[in-house]
């Protein structure tokens, strides 16, 4: 137990310069024996910066003097960045919606390629001219090549970072309404494995389908809202007997089916339906009921929607919670277009985005590196 006595060690730091004696006796020069409750704020901060959010909250209510240091070092989760692919040149821009800042990197390694998917800071890219498929981490500049494959009109996804031994790459091609060709690959493989599969319910695969990997399964959402599922271990494919989400009548405008985004969060599949200036509708797949359930709230979650892949985050700064961030930044004011479920409105208002008219390869939400000091 800390004693109450304090020993003040006054220190006279004498510096002889030009014969003058300088005696410094400020607060900094005294080494006091402190109680735990009165340790200097900077030292408390140094200790607390090692704590998780939950432990930080505990520390902040221990006593008065511990409150401010805990708050000052409290870190909430990092938001994804929106990565832009330039039409010309090698300068790639990254937009951080939390800080409203843009960073840039020169990435000549990506010349002639287009992005396909992203996960855990890794990109999957395709070079149409050479049919080269490769992984690339823009922050570490690591590159992992895969065997060549013609992917021109197919969507493709992968399960986790290619540095993991369980990484699987998946792509599905339409053969007929009841037959698909599924091809898989993994880092280190010499070729892609392709098989045809049948589905009893009609299913159309196209470049407009959305892919998500969740609980070991690849989920594929078709244009009309049916879910195809592929188990890469068992190698079986089927279409779930889950009727597509129900949308109101006014949702069926031009290109409405193209304004869909699919994302997973802790084992749940979420789908965002957008239509012109209507408020987006979010559905969650209830696997036990085999039905889509409309979500009026995301319970503090933030979704980041982009054409090829979308992300979810919990514990973001309060103002970002319970919202959907879209892959469009209004450079006046540097705000990302977002929809707030709390306020039931877009920010900024009067949005009428036809996601069917956007360039799918223009940008993508990517997980930033843990240490961003190199980019600031």
């Amino acid at each position, binding site marked *: *137990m800390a004693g109450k006595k304090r020993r003040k060690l006054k220190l006279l730091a004498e510096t002889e310069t030009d014969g003058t004696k300088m005696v410094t006796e400020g607060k900094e020069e005294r080494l006091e024996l402190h109680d735990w409750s009165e340790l*200097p704020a900077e030292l408390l901060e140094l200790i607390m910066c090692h704590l998780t959010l939950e432990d930080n909250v505990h520390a902040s209510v221990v006593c008065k003097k511990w409150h401010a240091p805990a708050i000052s070092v409290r870190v909430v989760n990092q938001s994804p960045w929106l990565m832009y692919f330039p039409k010309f040149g090698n300068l790639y821009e990254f937009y951080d919606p939390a800080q409203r800042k843009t960073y840039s990197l020169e990435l000549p390694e990506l010349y002639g390629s287009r992005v396909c998917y992203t996960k855990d800071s890794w990109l999957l890219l395709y070079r149409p001219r050479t049919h080269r498929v490769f992984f690339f981490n823009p922050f570490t500049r690591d590159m992992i090549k895969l065997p060549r494959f013609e992917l021109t009109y197919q969507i493709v996804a992968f399960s986790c970072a290619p540095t993991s031994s369980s990484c699987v790459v998946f792509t599905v091609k339409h053969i007929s309404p009841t037959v698909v060709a599924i091809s898989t690959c993994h880092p280190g493989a010499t070729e892609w494995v392709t098989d045809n599969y049948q589905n009893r319910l009609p299913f159309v695969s196209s470049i407009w389908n959305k892919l998500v990997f969740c609980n070991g399964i690849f989920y594929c959402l078709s244009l009309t809202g049916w879910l195809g599922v592929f188990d890469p271990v068992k190698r079986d494919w089927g279409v779930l007997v889950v009727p597509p989400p129900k949308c109101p009548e006014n949702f069926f405008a031009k290109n409405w089916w193209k304004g869909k985004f699919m994302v997973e969060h802790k084992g749940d599949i979420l789908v965002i339906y957008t239509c012109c200036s209507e408020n987006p509708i979010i559905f969650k797949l209830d696997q036990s009921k085999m039905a889509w359930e409309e979500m009026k709230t995301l319970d503090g979650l933030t979704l980041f929607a982009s054409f090829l892949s979308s992300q979810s985050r919990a514990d973001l700064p309060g103002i970002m919670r319970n919202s959907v961030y879209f892959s469009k930044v209004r450079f006046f004011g540097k705000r990302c277009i977002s929809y707030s479920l709390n306020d039931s409105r877009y920010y900024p208002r009067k949005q009428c985005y036809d996601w069917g008219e956007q360039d799918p390869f223009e940008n993508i939400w990517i997980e930033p590196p843990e240490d961003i000091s190199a980019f600031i």
Partner: protein
Amino acid sequence: NEENIFEDGGQQLFKVEEQGCSRLCSHSSTSDGTSEDMVVLQLPYIIKFCKAHGVSKENEFGKGKSNDELKEMLLVADYLTIKDTLDYLAETLANRIKNKSVEYIRKFFGIENNFMPEEKEATRKEYELLRLLI
């Protein structure tokens, strides 16, 4: 800030910034070898740590030390501006707080809950709200 490197028997021990250097030089033990000076008391441990630093012994070092001993070392390391030791001590102390309840932390460090009644209520509410958000 100029960096001064302290050595012992040819082995580099720690770097100290200029401010820490002048402080270090001004502390000394009395003629009979005893001292009430916190810096002098803690310095041998800091030297020991620095000698073992870089080997896996690093994690063992804080084990046998009481909270108060670690606290004194922390203060001395900060006072003498020895960054590596300071970082290590801060992390060791953080590990002692991890996954513990608020009551446990108070008891463990001998801290009184000195929030005023209204403040206690306000902090309790903030705490509960944050717990829901986590």
